[in-house]
Protein backbone atom coordinates (compact mmCIF):
# COMPACT_ATOMS: atom_id res chain seq x y z
CA UNK A 1 0.00 0.00 0.00
CA UNK A 2 1.22 3.54 0.57
CA UNK A 3 3.16 1.77 3.32
CA UNK A 4 4.34 -1.58 1.96
CA UNK A 5 6.34 -4.29 3.70
CA UNK A 6 6.87 -2.36 6.93
CA UNK A 7 9.45 -4.04 9.18
CA UNK A 8 8.15 -4.64 12.73
CA UNK A 9 11.43 -6.03 14.03
CA UNK A 10 9.46 -9.17 15.03
CA UNK A 11 10.49 -12.63 13.87
CA UNK A 12 7.29 -14.19 15.16
CA UNK A 13 4.30 -13.27 17.28
CA UNK A 14 4.97 -13.75 21.00
CA UNK A 15 2.31 -15.27 23.27
CA UNK A 16 0.84 -13.30 26.18
CA UNK A 17 3.01 -15.16 28.76
CA UNK A 18 6.13 -13.97 26.97
CA UNK A 19 5.16 -10.31 27.30
CA UNK A 20 6.24 -8.11 30.22
CA UNK A 21 3.48 -6.79 32.47
CA UNK A 22 3.73 -3.39 30.77
CA UNK A 23 3.42 -4.98 27.34
CA UNK A 24 0.45 -7.06 28.47
CA UNK A 25 -1.31 -3.97 29.79
CA UNK A 26 -0.55 -2.17 26.54
CA UNK A 27 -1.94 -5.06 24.45
CA UNK A 28 -5.05 -5.14 26.65
CA UNK A 29 -5.69 -1.45 25.88
CA UNK A 30 -5.34 -2.13 22.16
CA UNK A 31 -7.65 -5.15 22.39
CA UNK A 32 -10.20 -2.93 24.15
CA UNK A 33 -9.96 -0.39 21.27
CA UNK A 34 -8.55 2.32 23.52
CA UNK A 35 -6.39 4.66 21.44
CA UNK A 36 -2.70 4.93 22.25
CA UNK A 37 -1.59 8.57 22.51
CA UNK A 38 1.97 9.85 21.99
CA UNK A 39 2.85 10.34 25.67
CA UNK A 40 1.49 6.92 26.74
CA UNK A 41 3.88 4.07 27.45
CA UNK A 42 4.41 1.91 24.34
CA UNK A 43 6.82 -0.90 23.41
CA UNK A 44 9.85 0.42 21.56
CA UNK A 45 9.11 -1.87 18.60
CA UNK A 46 5.57 -0.42 18.29
CA UNK A 47 7.00 3.11 18.25
CA UNK A 48 9.69 2.27 15.69
CA UNK A 49 7.29 0.36 13.44
CA UNK A 50 4.83 3.24 13.48
CA UNK A 51 7.56 5.74 12.60
CA UNK A 52 8.52 3.53 9.65
CA UNK A 53 4.92 3.03 8.55
CA UNK A 54 3.68 6.62 8.96
CA UNK A 55 6.80 8.16 7.43
CA UNK A 56 6.66 5.76 4.48
CA UNK A 57 3.04 6.76 4.03
CA UNK A 58 4.00 10.47 4.22
CA UNK A 59 6.86 10.06 1.75
CA UNK A 60 4.46 8.33 -0.67
CA UNK A 61 2.12 11.33 -0.58
CA UNK A 62 5.01 13.69 -1.30
CA UNK A 63 6.74 11.61 -3.99
CA UNK A 64 3.28 10.88 -5.42
CA UNK A 65 3.00 14.53 -6.43
CA UNK A 66 5.76 14.04 -9.02
CA UNK A 67 4.09 11.74 -11.59
CA UNK A 68 0.93 13.87 -11.52
CA UNK A 69 2.74 17.20 -11.40
CA UNK A 70 4.24 16.10 -14.71
CA UNK A 71 0.88 16.83 -16.40
CA UNK A 72 -0.19 20.09 -14.72
CA UNK A 73 1.25 22.28 -17.47
CA UNK A 74 -0.19 20.04 -20.19
CA UNK A 75 -3.68 19.36 -18.82
CA UNK A 76 -6.15 19.44 -21.74
CA UNK A 77 -8.25 22.35 -20.39
CA UNK A 78 -8.16 25.08 -17.77
CA UNK A 79 -10.78 23.19 -15.76
CA UNK A 80 -8.72 19.98 -15.74
CA UNK A 81 -5.63 21.97 -14.83
CA UNK A 82 -7.30 23.66 -11.85
CA UNK A 83 -8.65 20.31 -10.64
CA UNK A 84 -5.27 18.58 -11.00
CA UNK A 85 -3.54 21.39 -9.11
CA UNK A 86 -6.06 21.07 -6.28
CA UNK A 87 -5.51 17.33 -6.22
CA UNK A 88 -1.72 17.60 -6.12
CA UNK A 89 -1.99 20.27 -3.40
CA UNK A 90 -4.12 17.84 -1.38
CA UNK A 91 -1.34 15.25 -1.65
CA UNK A 92 1.10 17.76 -0.17
CA UNK A 93 -1.39 18.36 2.64
CA UNK A 94 -1.75 14.63 3.26
CA UNK A 95 2.02 14.30 3.46
CA UNK A 96 2.09 17.08 6.05
CA UNK A 97 -0.70 15.57 8.20
CA UNK A 98 1.27 12.32 8.23
CA UNK A 99 4.67 13.87 9.01
CA UNK A 100 2.98 15.60 11.98
CA UNK A 101 1.58 12.28 13.19
CA UNK A 102 5.05 10.70 12.93
CA UNK A 103 6.64 13.61 14.77
CA UNK A 104 4.48 12.97 17.84
CA UNK A 105 6.56 9.78 18.25
CA UNK A 106 9.70 11.80 18.94
CA UNK A 107 11.34 12.04 15.54
CA UNK A 108 11.84 15.29 13.62
CA UNK A 109 10.58 15.94 10.12
CA UNK A 110 14.09 16.77 8.93
CA UNK A 111 15.30 13.36 10.13
CA UNK A 112 12.44 11.66 8.27
CA UNK A 113 13.20 13.57 5.09
CA UNK A 114 16.92 12.77 5.40
CA UNK A 115 16.01 9.05 5.59
CA UNK A 116 13.96 9.36 2.40
CA UNK A 117 16.79 11.10 0.58
CA UNK A 118 19.42 8.60 1.69
CA UNK A 119 17.23 5.72 0.50
CA UNK A 120 16.86 4.32 4.04
CA UNK A 121 13.13 5.05 4.10
CA UNK A 122 10.87 3.79 1.31
CA UNK A 123 7.79 5.12 -0.43
CA UNK A 124 5.14 3.22 -2.34
CA UNK A 125 6.42 1.30 -5.38
CA UNK A 126 3.60 2.70 -7.53
CA UNK A 127 5.18 6.13 -7.88
CA UNK A 128 8.19 4.71 -9.71
CA UNK A 129 6.17 4.26 -12.88
CA UNK A 130 6.06 7.02 -15.52
CA UNK A 131 3.00 9.04 -16.58
CA UNK A 132 3.26 8.82 -20.33
CA UNK A 133 -0.11 10.23 -21.44
CA UNK A 134 -2.96 12.32 -20.03
CA UNK A 135 -4.93 9.09 -19.58
CA UNK A 136 -2.39 8.08 -16.92
CA UNK A 137 -3.70 10.92 -14.76
CA UNK A 138 -7.15 9.36 -15.04
CA UNK A 139 -5.81 5.88 -14.29
CA UNK A 140 -3.87 7.09 -11.23
CA UNK A 141 -6.88 8.81 -9.68
CA UNK A 142 -9.19 5.89 -10.42
CA UNK A 143 -6.85 2.99 -9.56
CA UNK A 144 -4.05 4.30 -7.33
CA UNK A 145 -6.23 6.57 -5.22
CA UNK A 146 -8.92 3.89 -5.26
CA UNK A 147 -6.43 1.38 -3.83
CA UNK A 148 -5.26 3.96 -1.29
CA UNK A 149 -8.83 4.56 -0.06
CA UNK A 150 -9.32 0.82 0.34
CA UNK A 151 -6.35 0.71 2.69
CA UNK A 152 -6.89 4.01 4.47
CA UNK A 153 -10.51 3.63 5.49
CA UNK A 154 -9.73 0.71 7.85
CA UNK A 155 -6.69 2.65 9.14
CA UNK A 156 -9.06 5.33 10.49
CA UNK A 157 -9.70 2.77 13.26
CA UNK A 158 -6.01 2.03 13.94
CA UNK A 159 -4.67 2.01 17.50
CA UNK A 160 -2.46 5.10 17.38
CA UNK A 161 -4.50 8.29 17.94
CA UNK A 162 -2.57 10.77 15.78
CA UNK A 163 -2.34 8.30 12.85
CA UNK A 164 -6.01 7.49 13.07
CA UNK A 165 -6.96 11.19 13.14
CA UNK A 166 -4.69 11.93 10.15
CA UNK A 167 -6.33 9.07 8.23
CA UNK A 168 -9.80 10.45 8.95
CA UNK A 169 -8.81 13.81 7.45
CA UNK A 170 -7.14 12.14 4.47
CA UNK A 171 -10.13 9.89 3.73
CA UNK A 172 -12.52 12.86 3.74
CA UNK A 173 -10.50 14.38 0.90
CA UNK A 174 -9.52 11.26 -1.00
CA UNK A 175 -12.82 10.42 -2.69
CA UNK A 176 -12.54 13.58 -4.77
CA UNK A 177 -9.24 12.20 -6.08
CA UNK A 178 -10.70 8.90 -7.16
CA UNK A 179 -13.76 10.48 -8.74
CA UNK A 180 -11.76 13.06 -10.71
CA UNK A 181 -9.68 10.16 -12.08
CA UNK A 182 -12.74 8.14 -13.06
CA UNK A 183 -14.22 11.27 -14.64
CA UNK A 184 -11.11 11.63 -16.84
CA UNK A 185 -11.38 7.96 -17.85
CA UNK A 186 -15.10 8.32 -18.58
CA UNK A 187 -14.51 11.36 -20.79
CA UNK A 188 -11.79 9.53 -22.74
CA UNK A 189 -13.90 6.38 -23.10
CA UNK A 190 -16.84 8.40 -24.47
CA UNK A 191 -14.52 10.25 -26.87
CA UNK A 192 -12.88 9.19 -30.14
CA UNK A 193 -11.51 5.69 -30.79
CA UNK A 194 -8.02 7.06 -30.21
CA UNK A 195 -9.01 8.55 -26.85
CA UNK A 196 -10.59 5.29 -25.77
CA UNK A 197 -7.43 3.44 -26.83
CA UNK A 198 -5.42 5.83 -24.64
CA UNK A 199 -7.63 4.95 -21.66
CA UNK A 200 -7.18 1.22 -22.36
CA UNK A 201 -3.42 1.65 -22.67
CA UNK A 202 -3.24 3.47 -19.33
CA UNK A 203 -5.27 0.70 -17.67
CA UNK A 204 -2.95 -1.91 -19.19
CA UNK A 205 0.10 -0.24 -17.72
CA UNK A 206 -1.33 0.70 -14.27
CA UNK A 207 -3.41 -2.38 -13.41
CA UNK A 208 -0.68 -4.77 -12.23
CA UNK A 209 1.38 -2.13 -10.38
CA UNK A 210 -1.87 -1.09 -8.62
CA UNK A 211 -2.42 -4.65 -7.40
CA UNK A 212 1.20 -4.75 -6.18
CA UNK A 213 0.52 -1.68 -4.03
CA UNK A 214 -1.19 -3.91 -1.47
CA UNK A 215 2.12 -5.67 -0.81
CA UNK A 216 3.29 -9.28 -1.02
CA UNK A 217 0.87 -12.21 -0.53
CA UNK A 218 -0.11 -12.90 3.10
CA UNK A 219 1.79 -16.20 3.09
CA UNK A 220 5.12 -14.41 2.61
CA UNK A 221 4.39 -11.30 4.66
CA UNK A 222 6.33 -11.87 7.89
CA UNK A 223 5.42 -8.68 9.73
CA UNK A 224 1.68 -8.69 9.15
CA UNK A 225 0.75 -10.74 12.21
CA UNK A 226 2.53 -8.37 14.59
CA UNK A 227 1.10 -5.29 12.88
CA UNK A 228 -2.38 -6.81 13.00
CA UNK A 229 -2.05 -7.55 16.72
CA UNK A 230 -1.04 -3.94 17.35
CA UNK A 231 -3.97 -2.78 15.17
CA UNK A 232 -1.81 -0.72 12.86
CA UNK A 233 -2.77 -3.01 10.02
CA UNK A 234 -6.47 -3.74 9.99
CA UNK A 235 -6.93 -6.06 6.99
CA UNK A 236 -4.46 -8.35 5.26
CA UNK A 237 -2.77 -7.58 1.93
CA UNK A 238 -4.70 -10.29 0.10
CA UNK A 239 -8.06 -9.30 1.60
CA UNK A 240 -7.59 -5.67 0.55
CA UNK A 241 -6.39 -6.70 -2.91
CA UNK A 242 -9.42 -8.93 -3.45
CA UNK A 243 -11.79 -6.16 -2.35
CA UNK A 244 -10.09 -3.78 -4.75
CA UNK A 245 -10.41 -6.17 -7.69
CA UNK A 246 -14.07 -6.88 -6.87
CA UNK A 247 -14.84 -3.19 -6.72
CA UNK A 248 -12.87 -2.11 -9.78
CA UNK A 249 -13.74 -4.71 -12.44
CA UNK A 250 -17.41 -3.61 -12.76
CA UNK A 251 -16.20 0.01 -13.07
CA UNK A 252 -13.97 -1.00 -16.01
CA UNK A 253 -16.95 -2.84 -17.52
CA UNK A 254 -18.93 0.38 -17.32
CA UNK A 255 -16.12 2.25 -19.09
CA UNK A 256 -16.01 -0.48 -21.77
CA UNK A 257 -12.33 -1.23 -21.23
CA UNK A 258 -10.78 -4.35 -19.75
CA UNK A 259 -8.06 -5.41 -17.35
CA UNK A 260 -4.92 -6.89 -18.99
CA UNK A 261 -5.55 -10.26 -17.35
CA UNK A 262 -6.80 -13.26 -19.37
CA UNK A 263 -7.49 -15.22 -16.17
CA UNK A 264 -9.75 -12.59 -14.65
CA UNK A 265 -13.28 -13.97 -14.22
CA UNK A 266 -16.17 -13.98 -11.78
CA UNK A 267 -16.17 -16.99 -9.46
CA UNK A 268 -19.78 -17.49 -8.38
CA UNK A 269 -18.82 -20.02 -5.75
CA UNK A 270 -16.42 -17.68 -3.96
CA UNK A 271 -18.51 -14.62 -4.87
CA UNK A 272 -15.26 -12.90 -5.84
CA UNK A 273 -13.29 -12.33 -9.03
CA UNK A 274 -10.42 -14.76 -9.64
CA UNK A 275 -7.36 -13.13 -11.14
CA UNK A 276 -4.06 -14.20 -12.66
CA UNK A 277 -0.68 -14.45 -10.91
CA UNK A 278 1.12 -11.23 -9.99
CA UNK A 279 4.77 -10.83 -10.99
CA UNK A 280 6.25 -10.42 -7.52
CA UNK A 281 9.79 -10.19 -8.88
CA UNK A 282 8.73 -6.92 -10.47
CA UNK A 283 7.54 -5.54 -7.10
CA UNK A 284 10.74 -6.57 -5.30
CA UNK A 285 12.85 -5.10 -8.06
CA UNK A 286 10.98 -1.75 -7.95
CA UNK A 287 11.19 -1.65 -4.14
CA UNK A 288 14.93 -2.29 -4.38
CA UNK A 289 15.31 0.80 -6.55
CA UNK A 290 15.18 -0.62 -10.06
CA UNK A 291 11.77 0.57 -11.25
CA UNK A 292 11.50 2.74 -14.36
CA UNK A 293 11.63 6.06 -12.42
CA UNK A 294 13.21 5.39 -8.97
CA UNK A 295 16.33 7.44 -9.62
CA UNK A 296 14.45 10.27 -11.28
CA UNK A 297 11.94 10.54 -8.40
CA UNK A 298 14.56 10.63 -5.68
CA UNK A 299 16.71 13.06 -7.63
CA UNK A 300 13.73 15.42 -7.99
CA UNK A 301 13.05 15.29 -4.22
CA UNK A 302 16.67 15.86 -3.23
CA UNK A 303 17.00 18.73 -5.72
CA UNK A 304 13.84 20.42 -4.42
CA UNK A 305 15.13 20.08 -0.84
CA UNK A 306 18.59 21.43 -1.62
CA UNK A 307 17.42 24.23 -3.89
CA UNK A 308 14.92 25.32 -1.24
CA UNK A 309 17.47 25.37 1.59
CA UNK A 310 18.30 29.07 1.23
CA UNK A 311 14.60 29.97 1.41
CA UNK A 312 14.10 27.97 4.61
CA UNK A 313 17.22 29.48 6.14
CA UNK A 314 16.34 33.03 5.08
CA UNK A 315 12.82 32.72 6.54
CA UNK A 316 14.27 31.47 9.82
CA UNK A 317 16.90 34.23 9.94
CA UNK A 318 14.18 36.82 9.26
CA UNK A 319 12.00 35.40 12.05
CA UNK A 320 14.90 35.38 14.50
CA UNK A 321 15.89 38.94 13.66
CA UNK A 322 12.33 40.15 14.28
CA UNK A 323 12.04 38.18 17.51
CA UNK A 324 15.31 39.70 18.74
CA UNK A 325 14.15 43.21 17.81
CA UNK A 326 10.88 42.68 19.69
CA UNK A 327 12.73 41.42 22.78
CA UNK A 328 15.12 44.41 22.76
Amino acid at each position, binding site marked *: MYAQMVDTGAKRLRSLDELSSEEREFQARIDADIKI*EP*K*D*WMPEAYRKTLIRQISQHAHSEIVGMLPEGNWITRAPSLKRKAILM*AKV*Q*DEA*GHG*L*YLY*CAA*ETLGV*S*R*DELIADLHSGKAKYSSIFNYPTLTWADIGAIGWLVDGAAIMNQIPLCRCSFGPYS*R*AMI*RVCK*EESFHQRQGFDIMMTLCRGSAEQKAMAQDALNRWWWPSLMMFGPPDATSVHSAQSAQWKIKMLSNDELRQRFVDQTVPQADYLGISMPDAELKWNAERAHYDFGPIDWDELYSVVKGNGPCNRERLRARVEAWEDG*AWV*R*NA*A*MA*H*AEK*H*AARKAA
Partner: protein
Amino acid sequence: MSHEWPLWEIFIRSQHGLAHKHVGSLHAPDAEMAVKNARDVYTRRNEGVSIWVVKSADIVASSPGKKEPMFEPASSKVYRHPTFFPMPDEVKHI
Protein backbone atom coordinates in the same frame (compact mmCIF):
# COMPACT_ATOMS: atom_id res chain seq x y z
CA MET B 1 23.77 26.55 8.61
CA SER B 2 20.43 24.87 8.80
CA HIS B 3 18.02 24.44 11.60
CA GLU B 4 14.49 23.18 11.49
CA TRP B 5 11.52 25.55 11.63
CA PRO B 6 9.72 25.29 14.98
CA LEU B 7 6.54 23.25 15.34
CA TRP B 8 3.17 25.00 15.86
CA GLU B 9 -0.13 23.51 17.03
CA ILE B 10 -3.10 24.63 14.97
CA PHE B 11 -6.62 25.33 16.25
CA ILE B 12 -9.54 26.08 13.92
CA ARG B 13 -13.01 27.46 14.64
CA SER B 14 -15.54 25.96 12.25
CA GLN B 15 -18.49 27.86 10.80
CA HIS B 16 -21.08 27.15 13.44
CA GLY B 17 -19.89 29.16 16.41
CA LEU B 18 -18.12 26.27 18.12
CA ALA B 19 -14.89 26.66 20.09
CA HIS B 20 -11.52 26.45 18.34
CA LYS B 21 -10.54 22.81 17.98
CA HIS B 22 -7.07 21.30 17.67
CA VAL B 23 -6.58 19.98 14.13
CA GLY B 24 -2.87 19.17 13.94
CA SER B 25 0.50 20.82 13.75
CA LEU B 26 2.91 22.24 11.19
CA HIS B 27 6.34 23.83 10.87
CA ALA B 28 6.79 27.54 10.23
CA PRO B 29 9.53 30.10 10.95
CA ASP B 30 7.20 32.54 12.74
CA ALA B 31 3.59 33.06 13.83
CA GLU B 32 2.57 34.94 10.71
CA MET B 33 3.82 32.16 8.42
CA ALA B 34 2.24 29.57 10.72
CA VAL B 35 -1.17 31.20 10.16
CA LYS B 36 -0.63 31.31 6.39
CA ASN B 37 0.55 27.71 6.25
CA ALA B 38 -2.35 26.62 8.46
CA ARG B 39 -4.74 28.21 5.98
CA ASP B 40 -3.27 26.08 3.19
CA VAL B 41 -2.85 22.86 5.14
CA TYR B 42 -6.02 22.79 7.25
CA THR B 43 -8.71 24.92 5.56
CA ARG B 44 -8.64 23.97 1.87
CA ARG B 45 -12.36 23.14 2.00
CA ASN B 46 -13.82 25.97 4.07
CA GLU B 47 -13.23 24.12 7.33
CA GLY B 48 -12.90 27.28 9.36
CA VAL B 49 -13.51 30.95 9.95
CA SER B 50 -10.69 31.54 12.44
CA ILE B 51 -7.22 30.11 13.09
CA TRP B 52 -5.15 30.08 16.29
CA VAL B 53 -1.49 29.02 16.22
CA VAL B 54 0.53 28.22 19.35
CA LYS B 55 4.15 27.12 19.51
CA SER B 56 4.13 23.44 20.49
CA ALA B 57 6.92 24.11 22.98
CA ASP B 58 4.62 26.53 24.85
CA ILE B 59 1.91 23.95 25.53
CA VAL B 60 1.82 22.50 29.03
CA ALA B 61 0.04 19.15 29.26
CA SER B 62 -1.15 16.95 32.10
CA SER B 63 0.96 13.84 32.52
CA PRO B 64 -0.54 10.62 31.14
CA GLY B 65 1.20 8.68 33.94
CA LYS B 66 -0.81 10.64 36.54
CA LYS B 67 -4.18 10.01 34.94
CA GLU B 68 -5.53 8.26 38.06
CA PRO B 69 -4.81 10.88 40.74
CA MET B 70 -5.72 13.62 38.28
CA PHE B 71 -9.14 12.43 37.15
CA GLU B 72 -10.21 9.84 39.73
CA PRO B 73 -11.72 12.43 42.15
CA ALA B 74 -14.42 13.25 39.57
CA SER B 75 -15.40 9.67 38.89
CA SER B 76 -16.67 9.08 42.46
CA LYS B 77 -18.95 12.14 42.35
CA VAL B 78 -21.79 10.83 40.26
CA TYR B 79 -24.21 13.24 41.99
CA ARG B 80 -22.79 15.93 39.72
CA HIS B 81 -24.89 14.46 36.92
CA PRO B 82 -28.63 15.20 36.75
CA THR B 83 -29.42 11.54 36.12
CA PHE B 84 -28.32 10.79 39.70
CA PHE B 85 -31.70 12.15 40.91
CA PRO B 86 -34.62 10.02 39.80
CA MET B 87 -37.75 12.09 39.15
CA PRO B 88 -41.28 10.75 39.39
CA ASP B 89 -43.05 10.45 36.01
CA GLU B 90 -45.80 12.83 37.15
CA VAL B 91 -43.34 15.68 37.62
CA LYS B 92 -42.87 17.57 34.36
CA HIS B 93 -40.44 20.16 33.02
CA ILE B 94 -37.54 19.32 35.32
